[in-house]
């Protein structure tokens, strides 16, 4: 499985959405139910899947599908 597939699976599972809706508009402001609890579920899943530990400031920044890709790159995870 590629890293992109892993990422899409995580978003799909955490937000209970089809992978087809994952695009540049998929962000905290546009997605219903993207609260702090959901955000922590998302970051926990990312940490588990990619075997990383996010810095506190990165956890706060995981606020969109695209931003998440950028943050993962900081941890040498190429999407």
């Amino acid at each position: 499985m590629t890293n992109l597939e892993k990422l899409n699976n995580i978003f799909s599972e955490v937000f209970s959405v089809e992978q087809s809706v994952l695009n540049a508009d998929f962000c905290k402001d546009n997605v219903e139910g993207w609260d702090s609890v959901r955000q922590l579920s998302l970051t926990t899943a990312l940490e588990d899947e990619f075997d990383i530990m996010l810095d506190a400031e990165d956890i706060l920044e995981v606020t969109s599908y695209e931003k998440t890709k950028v943050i993962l790159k900081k941890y040498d995870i190429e999407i």
Partner: protein
Amino acid sequence: MNNMLNGKIAIVTGAGAGIGRATAQLFSNEGAVVYAIDIKGLDWVNSGSNVGRIIPVELDICDFTAVKDSIVSIKKEHGHIDVLANIAGLISYELMPMIDYNQFRKMIDVNVVSLVHLMSLVARIMQRQQGGSIINMASMVGAKGAKGQLSYSATKGAVIAATKSAAKELAEYHIRVNAIAPGMVGSERFKAVLAEKFAQKMNDIPFGRLADPEDVANLCLFLASDKSSYMTGQIIGIDGGAII
């Protein structure tokens, strides 16, 4: 030895001396693999039966990057972290007009901010394993106040509040968070520098003696072990009867 911590992975900060050192030693004697953290003073680890059972980690707990790297490394090595004993701390004694605010800020950084950061990191690992024990070192003066210790007592009051809030937030993951509030502890530093200054106050201790670091370590062991499996959010005094 009762193997009360057999198979557990424990982190002890402030392990260079005093309560931290006694706790690291006791945890190891009880079967835990212990990561002993301090900014200095860990030479004692590299002797006798400690070798291989206690792992010295020399770092400044205010250095967030170093702390995180260390936690990640422990997680990768063992897959779990069962106990965090936040014992590192700074102390000061001065009347209010004599407060050194740079020292006060440093004390907040070490006693509170770093403690919260460590709790936060380790709790993220403990959440996944649905359990763990976090022990924070508060102080009797954090609960009761003390003349000449406003700045120190403020940091320890913060530790008490942080302990209770963390206990509430982490209970659903079966992570226990408790704090210990010692009275006067006869650490080497205390005996060497401060014992004379506090001689009068020692008369207020019904047990007639200071606490030994090992007295406090024994309480840490109880809180780290499964013997306290239904306790969380508690601030436990250990003061020889000074406050009853």
